């Protein structure tokens, strides 16, 4: 008999047969039938020991093999099965430990620039304490989800790269994103869970509370947060600010003109402005002036006319100044405020451009100006993602009331990469549009998510209070490779993947639906999510979640086409036709599933951050390096023409536009413009207008945006800074900088 046994970690311990006996007893007990008596247990153990001796085995794994063998031979098949399971569980836990600890070691000791795993999300600093803490949690959670939560087929599909379950670490916790209606939220004031905030009363507090709402909601969801009607919402703050400024300026004028003391002037103003049919606003100066005069006797009128004129001018000036400062602060806050335990700023988006009121226009003008000016030292702000709504009759044509803002938006985007442009006239967006109702205007969330259609409640095809619940992506190039050039086989495989994704999305929906209002004190507790205001604290959120979308996505259409046809859709018409057929098929399946379930199944052109590299790495392992398919480090984003393919901007837009109509859960097209876009506004506008004409839903123009932090130059920097002449890493003399400072206001010194 072996005196020693060798454990898994290589060290030896004294052999103890009672441990074997106990393990068998435990397995037998777990079965509940097929009871082995005490003598039986001894007998089995003895037989195990005999075999070990005869075969001179001393390794733990070998011992366990022998136990299984003996149990089966003695007819205790169920106990043997329980023993195998018990053993497998332990292996899993042991693997978990090794696997997780390996990851934790990397997270702990490797700098982010060396470890890809620490750069999974480009906006989280993987080197900071909270960034690392988040990653520990995320990796631990993923392991838990993979091994104990996911249906086996979904877990396997994700692990081997057939599909990608996005934000898997949040599987048990929450939903992706929400479009927040600030107008509703602000009406009676709100609570963030850390204190109650009154209804705001000035543009400054409107902007500040907007940040707080984005932040509070970000902490309850795993995706970005969006304000779909920013101009309409902030306009109310401008309105309140203007009124106060008007009254103050009115009193001030009386005080000086009539030599009153301040209190008297205020009291006088109150009396004079009483009983008028409406309040003074930014837009109604003339009408209000007439009403004011009409309300008072002949003798009063000359003074009142002068006072009104003065008050209006002063109030406009002050309101504009304050709105600019509020927008500047809004941007600064969203680039610096913390969420997720301080590891990142909230992922925020704001949509605007269709409010034609004087107040709404003032908001947008000043937000754009502040964006164009940049942060403290002229840096480009990363957040919020800004989306300008382009709409004929409102902002698109030179005769439209907001055309000037559209122009300013393009100027700003040519300098700062934001805003992007959404096109409300694209037929699939226009079908929801009702004039004068922001809730019917399609909005896009930064990552490109689009939520408006609603099969669950066809009366409520609206933007506000809704968002995506979760999404999962299909690896299209893999299907192309598996189909070996056979298109029919491709569609059969695609259907299998789609079935798998739908099953998994529904599984996740069940988990999400099991939550209660109290799990989301802000999102649900404050009535931000549609219909959640009717729920009580302990209520389930399953029913209201049905307003959200369950979304299937795809990646690498270009590589899939290349695998099937030897060409992608930028290269040949036939490939474009097949590409459209594939995406149409995906959409049809989503529509069918939506009809069948009454849930908002929809299709997204996946935004793929960590994913584009993961899929291709797995496919490279499986199929080797294949030209046009696995020969890069990434798969091409959704339906895009490959970024490395030489193509004219207009052709690219033409090819990609039809996919926008098919991807009802979100899409975006990019054009890469050469050189300093701000010096080529004409080209910029031509491209945006072409997107509009082609039926693009959401688009933006990329251009090189570099900055020298030493001299403050912004524009294209190749090798050498055009302003101060230094190369990357070189110094400049202080004297030279002082000279530059005289020439340029934005030299940071």
């Amino acid at each position, binding site marked *: 008999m072996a005196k020693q046994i060798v454990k898994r970690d290589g060290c030896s311990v004294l052999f103890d047969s009672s441990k074997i006996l106990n393990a068998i007893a435990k397995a037998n007990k777990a079965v509940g039938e097929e009871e082995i008596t005490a003598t039986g247990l001894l007998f089995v153990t003895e037989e195990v020991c005999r075999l070990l001796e005869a075969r001179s085995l001393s390794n733990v794994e070998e011992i366990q093999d022998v136990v299984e063998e003996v149990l089966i031979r003695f007819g205790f098949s169920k106990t043997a099965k329980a023993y195998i399971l018990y053993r497998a569980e332990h292996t899993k836990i042991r693997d978990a430990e090794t696997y997780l600890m390996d990851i934790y070691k990397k997270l702990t000791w490797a700098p982010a620039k060396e470890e890809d795993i620490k750069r999974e999300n480009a906006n989280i600093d993987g080197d900071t304490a909270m960034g690392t803490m988040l990653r520990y949690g995320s990796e631990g959670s993923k392991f838990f989800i993979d091994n104990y939560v996911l249906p086996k087929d979904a877990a396997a599909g994700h692990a081997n790269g057939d599909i990608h379950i996005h934000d898997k670490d949040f599987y048990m916790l929450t939903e992706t994103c929400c479009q927040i209606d600030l107008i509703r939220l602000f009406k009676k004031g709100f609570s963030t869970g850390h204190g109650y905030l009154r209804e705001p009363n000035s543009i400054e507090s409107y902007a500040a509370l907007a940040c707080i709402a984005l932040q509070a909601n970000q902490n309850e969801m795993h995706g970005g947060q969006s304000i779909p009607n920013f101009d309409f919402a902030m306009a109310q703050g401008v309105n309140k600010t203007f009124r106060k400024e008007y009254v103050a300026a009115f009193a001030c004028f009386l005080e000086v003109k009539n030599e009153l003391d301040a209190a008297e002037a205020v009291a006088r103003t109150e009396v004079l402005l009483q009983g008028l049919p409406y309040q003074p606003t930014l837009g109604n100066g003339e009408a209000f002036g007439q009403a004011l005069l009409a309300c008072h006797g002949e003798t009063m009128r000359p003074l009142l006319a002068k006072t009104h004129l003065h008050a209006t001018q002063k109030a406009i000036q002050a309101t504009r100044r304050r709105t600019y400062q509020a927008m500047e602060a809004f941007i600064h806050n969203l680039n610096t405020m913390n969420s997720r335990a301080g590891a990142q700023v909230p992922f925020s988006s704001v949509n605007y451009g269709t409010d034609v009121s004087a107040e709404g226009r003032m908001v947008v003008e000043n937000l754009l100006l502040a964006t164009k000016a940049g942060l403290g030292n002229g840096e480009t702000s990363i957040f919020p993602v800004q989306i300008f709504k382009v709409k004929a009759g409102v902002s698109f044509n030179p005769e439209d009331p907001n055309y000037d803002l559209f122009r300013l938006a393009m100027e700003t985007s040519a300098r700062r990469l934001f805003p992007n442009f959404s096109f409300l006239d694209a037929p699939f967006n226009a079908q929801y549009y009702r004039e004068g109702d922001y809730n019917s205007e399609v909005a896009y969330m930064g990552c490109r998510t689009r939520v408006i259609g609603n099969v669950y409640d066809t009366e409520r095809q609206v933007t506000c209070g809704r968002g995506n619940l979760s999404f999962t992506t299909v690896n299209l190039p893999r299907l192309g490779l598996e189909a070996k050039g056979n298109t029919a086989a491709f569609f059969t495989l695609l259907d299998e993947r789609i079935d798998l994704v739908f099953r998994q999305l529904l599984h996740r929906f069940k988990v999400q639906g099991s939550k209660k209002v109290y799990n989301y004190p802000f999102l649900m507790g404050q009535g931000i999510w549609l219909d959640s205001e009717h729920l009580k604290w302990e209520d389930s959120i399953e029913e209201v979640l049905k307003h959200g979308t369950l979304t299937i996505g795809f990646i690498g259409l270009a590589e899939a086409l290349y695998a099937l046809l030897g060409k992608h859709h930028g290269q040949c018409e036939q490939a474009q036709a097949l590409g459209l057929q594939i995406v149409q098929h995906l959409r049809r399946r989503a529509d069918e599933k939506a009809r069948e379930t009454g849930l908002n199944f929809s299709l997204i052109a996946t935004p793929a*951050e960590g994913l584009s590299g993961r899929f291709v790495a797995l496919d490279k392992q499986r199929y080797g390096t294949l030209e046009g398919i696995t020969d890069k480090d990434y798969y091409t984003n959704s339906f895009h023409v490959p970024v490395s393919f030489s193509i004219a901007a207009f052709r690219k837009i033409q090819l990609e536009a039809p996919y926008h109509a098919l991807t009802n859960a979100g899409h975006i097209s990019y054009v890469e*413009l050469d050189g300093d876009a701000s010096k080529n506004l004409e080209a910029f506008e031509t491209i945006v207008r072409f997107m509009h004409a082609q039926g693009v839903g959401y688009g933006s123009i990329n251009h090189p945006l570099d900055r020298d*932090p030493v001299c403050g130059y912004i524009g294209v920097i190749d090798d050498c800074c055009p302003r101060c002449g230094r190369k990357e890493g070189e110094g400049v003399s202080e004297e030279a900088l002082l000279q530059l400072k005289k020439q340029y206001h934005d030299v940071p010194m």
Partner: protein
Amino acid sequence: MLLDTQCTDKKVATEVKMVGAGQGFERTRRITGYLVGTLERFNNAKRAEERERVKHGAA
């Protein structure tokens, strides 16, 4: 005199204060809809994608 000037010149030259040595340029890029202030935080796949982007002629 001559010597003196040379001397002063030298002194000035050594006192020229240089700023910015070691500082790189900031390159802001868009990635899956979001802007990122520095390429360093891109993961490997996205870095490769950014590198391979070609410009689209607008003519």
